């Protein structure tokens, strides 16, 4: 027969339960912040502990960059395009991280069993997604820098950055918009089955083409203009090209200020849509019992 809790003891217990479960706004923010930092940590520190990851994160983009540079050289184009290709490859490393380490991550976590831990931990999927985004972006920065330096050393590219602050702003806005889109993609991947890997592949080369990564988006005509409004890669690389390679400024489709604004709007819109989608899929997945079901 168990003992019952009555009187002052019961009131204290109720008060304690209330205190522990009804968090103030400040405590919720602190908790979300700690969750974000906790998820970002392995992305930055863990990734640095595995040299082979760094090697492959660098070797694929650099080989792709070399192919494009040799293709350009076979046509004898202005060396400014080589400089642009190197920058595009560096920016692309963020996009690849968005697709595979952001979009596909929950899908992989589900198949490897880690999603179960996320779901049972007192942490929202939104905070985990934000942590993945921030940690992923910070982890890719070093890779992007190495790719740029390697490109400059291999191909002798030259840059004329008149306004480093504007350059930093363009990169920051581009990366933020891409990772916001990554939160949306993570929802799509989470409901994907075996097609997830193929979906990831479809988000690479076709998006590089639509985003005008290596050739100006202007050459895509109307499709390129539409891409500027929905695909963060397009305004980001277009603005980057105008700011860092002034010889190619005339190829820009919109002024840099407008493209920065587009990227800001994308960051907010994709972030909100991603948050709503993630919560919806989590709710529906729990109700249907499919949230943790393996794809294969």
């Amino acid at each position, binding site marked *: 027969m168990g003992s019952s809790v009555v009187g002052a003891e019961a009131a204290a217990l109720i008060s304690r339960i209330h205190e522990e479960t009804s968090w103030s706004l400040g405590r919720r923010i602190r908790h979300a912040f700690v969750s974000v930092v906790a998820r970002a940590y392995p992305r930055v520190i863990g990734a640095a502990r595995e040299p082979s990851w760094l090697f492959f994160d660098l070797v694929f983009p650099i080989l792709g960059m070399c192919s494009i540079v040799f*293709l350009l050289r076979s*046509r004898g184009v202005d060396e400014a395009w080589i400089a642009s290709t190197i920058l595009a490859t560096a920016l692309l490393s963020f996009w690849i991280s968005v697709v595979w380490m952001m979009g596909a991550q929950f899908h992989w976590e589900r198949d490897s069993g880690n999603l179960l831990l996320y779901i049972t931990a007192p942490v929202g999927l939104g905070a985990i997604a934000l942590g993945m985004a921030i940690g992923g972006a910070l982890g890719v920065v070093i890779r992007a820098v190495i790719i740029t330096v390697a490109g400059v050393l291999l191909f002798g590219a030259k840059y004329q950055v008149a306004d480093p602050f504007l350059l930093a702003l363009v990169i920051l806005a581009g990366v933020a918009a891409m990772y916001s889109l990554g939160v949306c993609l993570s929802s799509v991947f989470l409901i994907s089955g075996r097609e997830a890997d193929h979906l990831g592949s*479809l988000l690479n080369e076709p998006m590089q083409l639509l985003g005008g990564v290596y050739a100006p988006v202007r050459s*895509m005509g109307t499709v390129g203009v539409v891409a500027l409004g929905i695909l963060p890669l397009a305004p980001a690389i277009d603005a980057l090209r105008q700011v860092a390679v002034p010889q190619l400024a005339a190829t820009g489709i919109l002024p840099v200020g407008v493209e920065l604004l587009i990227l800001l709007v994308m960051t907010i819109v994709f972030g909100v849509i991603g948050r709503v989608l993630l919560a919806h899929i989590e709710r529906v997945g729990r109700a249907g019992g499919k949230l943790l079901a393996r794809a294969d």
Partner: protein
Amino acid sequence: MRPFGPLRGGAADAARSLVASARLAWAIEGNWAQPVYLAAFLIVRPLAFLGLFLAVLSIGGSLNVATIGFVVIGQAVFQIVSAALEGPTHALLDDRERYRTIRYIFATPSSLLPVSIGRSLVKASIAGFSALVVIGAGMLLGVPMRAGGPDLLLFAAVLPLGLLSVVGLGIVLGGLCVQLRNDAWSYPEAVSSTVFLLCGAIFPLEVLPGPVQNIAAALPITWWIEGLRRALLGTTSPGILGTMPTNELLLILAVGTAVIWLISPRLFVAGIDRAREKGQLDQNTAS
């Protein structure tokens, strides 16, 4: 006859294993989505690749159809190269890491060598569909194909030789990667990307630095792509590739393929045996 190991039994056993693994590969590769989505995937990605390269080429001014033809055939054939090079490793790793069935395959009378080849050939065949799509797109762009149709004799000689050489290199990679833990999936892709850079698929070899050109010329894949360009377009490529007489090209391809097949099964068997001795053959590395 070896009682155990990656190569055992007679030719009939090997053929049975190859057919069974090919059917399995088709079930894995061909039914992950509705046929319409599968077709869309096989069409969209290679066309995007082609569009990307043509967009880059167009930076240097308007394109002539000969340049487009060079890139179209190179890009189309490389779809198959990439699938065949990566196929055996991905098949072995899929069975080890994802489906966790490699120990059961090993326990059957099947041999891993024909199983890997069967899986690789199906991947290459599916990539062949993408290659046809790319060539079709090239024809729509006005690429002039060989007058009077493809040179069927040359095509029939070059296609199997090249395919065999790529599958041979693929199984060497498979035997190597099954011994690795970290990033075993990434090595075939790294090799494939390097070969793409070297084999003159989208630009002439002369653009590469001098010593690298020699490496490129030593790759059978380089001559495979050039042979198929000659069979389908009826023209030779610019530069070094175009200076090689067709009969010499065939000889290089045949000798290269023979050397690869002399070595590759042995390396594959040695790789599988070593992985087995070290307990890595069925070790799930969660990679």
